[in-house]
C-alpha cells in the first residue's frame, strides 16, 4: 500500500489537474457544437426538391391543382399511425389530388432503409403502391427490430407478384441504393425534422397527421 509514501497527490496537482480537466471538457463540447453547426441543413432548397419527375405518385389529379407530398419512413411508428388516415384521404380524393410519397428512412431505424429499397425495387416493376401498402399493413411484424428483415421484404415481394429474380437484383443494386439516398438528400435539403412530414401545395403541414387535419388543409387548397 502507498502508506509508506504519504503522498497527498490528490491535493498537490489539484489546480493544474482541475484546469486541465475542465479545459478538455470545454474543447470537446466546442468540437461537438462546431460539428453540429457545420452539418446542419442549408434550408435553401428550391421547390424542385419537393417533387421530382421520377417521384412516386400514388394518385394524380386531373387538374393538377392540389399536390400532397409525404416524406415517410416505413419503419417509423408515427408514419404507421398516420397511414390509415392517409388511405382514407386518398380514397376520398382519388383523382382530385396528386399524392406523392417521398422516401426518408431515418438512420435510427435498422430496417427503414432496406424497406425503402424494397419499395423502390417494387416501383421498378410498377408495384410501388402494393409494396407501400404491404409494408405499412405489416409494420408491427417487421418494425422496431435490430436484426435484418430482408427475408420478410422478399416474402412481401413474392406475395404482391413481383418478378423475384429482378426484385432481388434491384433490392441490392447500387442504383436503388443511390435512388433512396437521393430521396433522403432532398428531405435533408428541405430541413425535415422527422417523419412523417406532409407538404400541401408546397407548404409544410403544421397540424396533426390525422385524416381530419389533412382534409382541412386539402379542402382549403381545393377551394382556392
Amino acid at each position: 500500500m502507498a502508506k509508506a509514501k504519504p503522498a497527498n497527490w490528490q491535493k498537490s496537482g489539484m489546480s493544474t489537474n482541475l484546469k486541465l480537466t475542465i479545459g478538455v471538457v470545454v474543447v470537446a463540447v466546442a468540437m461537438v457544437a462546431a460539428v453540429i453547426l457545420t452539418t446542419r441543413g442549408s434550408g435553401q432548397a428550391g421547390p424542385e426538391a419537393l417533387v421530382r419527375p421520377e417521384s412516386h405518385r400514388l394518385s394524380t389529379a386531373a387538374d393538377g391543382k392540389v399536390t400532397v407530398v409525404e416524406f415517410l419512413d416505413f419503419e417509423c411508428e408515427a408514419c404507421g399511425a398516420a397511414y390509415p388516415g392517409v388511405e382514407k384521404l386518398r380514397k376520398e380524393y382519388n383523382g382530385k389530388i396528386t399524392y406523392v410519397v417521398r422516401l426518408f428512412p431515418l438512420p435510427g431505424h435498422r430496417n427503414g432503409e432496406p424497406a425503402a429499397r424494397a419499395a423502390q425495387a417494387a416501383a421498378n416493376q410498377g408495384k410501388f403502391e402494393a409494396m407501400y401498402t404491404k409494408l405499412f399493413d405489416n409494420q408491427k411484424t417487421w418494425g422496431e427490430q435490430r436484426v435484418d428483415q430482408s427475408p420478410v421484404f422478399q416474402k412481401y415481394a413474392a406475395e404482391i407478384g413481383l418478378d423475384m429474380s429482378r426484385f432481388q437484383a434491384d433490392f441490392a443494386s447500387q442504383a436503388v441504393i443511390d435512388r433512396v439516398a437521393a430521396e433522403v438528400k432532398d428531405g435533408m435539403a428541405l430541413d425535415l425534422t422527422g417523419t412523417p412530414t406532409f407538404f400541401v401545395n408546397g407548404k409544410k403541414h403544421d397540424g396533426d397527421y390525422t385524416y381530419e387535419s389533412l382534409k382541412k388543409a386539402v379542402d382549403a387548397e381545393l377551394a382556392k
Partner: protein
Amino acid sequence: MSKRLGWLLAAGGGLGTASAAALTIEKFHVLANPGYVPSCSINPIVSCGSVMTSAQAEVFGFPNPVIGLAAFPVVLTLGVLLIAKVPLPRWVMLGLNAGAALGVLFVHWLIFQSLYRIGALCPYCMVVWVVTITMFWYLTLHNFRLPVLRKYHSAVLTVWFLVIIGLIGEAFWDYWRTLLL
C-alpha cells in the same frame, strides 16, 4: 487517502452490484416471456433488449451480469473495510487491482461489441463501464507510483471517457443527427 479510495470502491461496487442485479432480473423476465420489453429499451439505439439477447451477452455460457453479481459485492466490501481503516495487505490490493484490470479489458471488448457489432446501447451496461474504468484507474494510481498520472488523475480519466463518448457519438451519429436537426 485510503479512505477516499474506500468510498470510491464502496460507491462503485454498490452501483455495479445494482446494475448487474437489474440486468439479471431483466434477463429473467426476457427468458420467462420472450415478448417482454426491458425497462431500459427506450428507442432503437438505447435498447438493452437488443444487447441482452445478443450472443456477446453470454460470453462464458451464462449471462455476463452474473459475473458482476459475484464480483461487485466483493469490491463494495473491500471498500467498506478501507473506509473503516482496516489495514489491507498489499497483495489483497494488488489482487483487487488485477481483477479490476480484467474487468476493464472485458468492458472495452463489450464497448466495441456494443458500438460496432450489436449497434445498440444498454444504460445499465454503461453504468458498469463507468464504474469499472473509474475504479481500475484509481486502484492503479493507489497501488503504483505513477507521479505524472497521479498529478493529472482526473484529466486523464476525463480524456478516457471523452474518447468513449466520442466513439459512441460517431458510431450513432446518423441517429443523433435526426434527433438534433
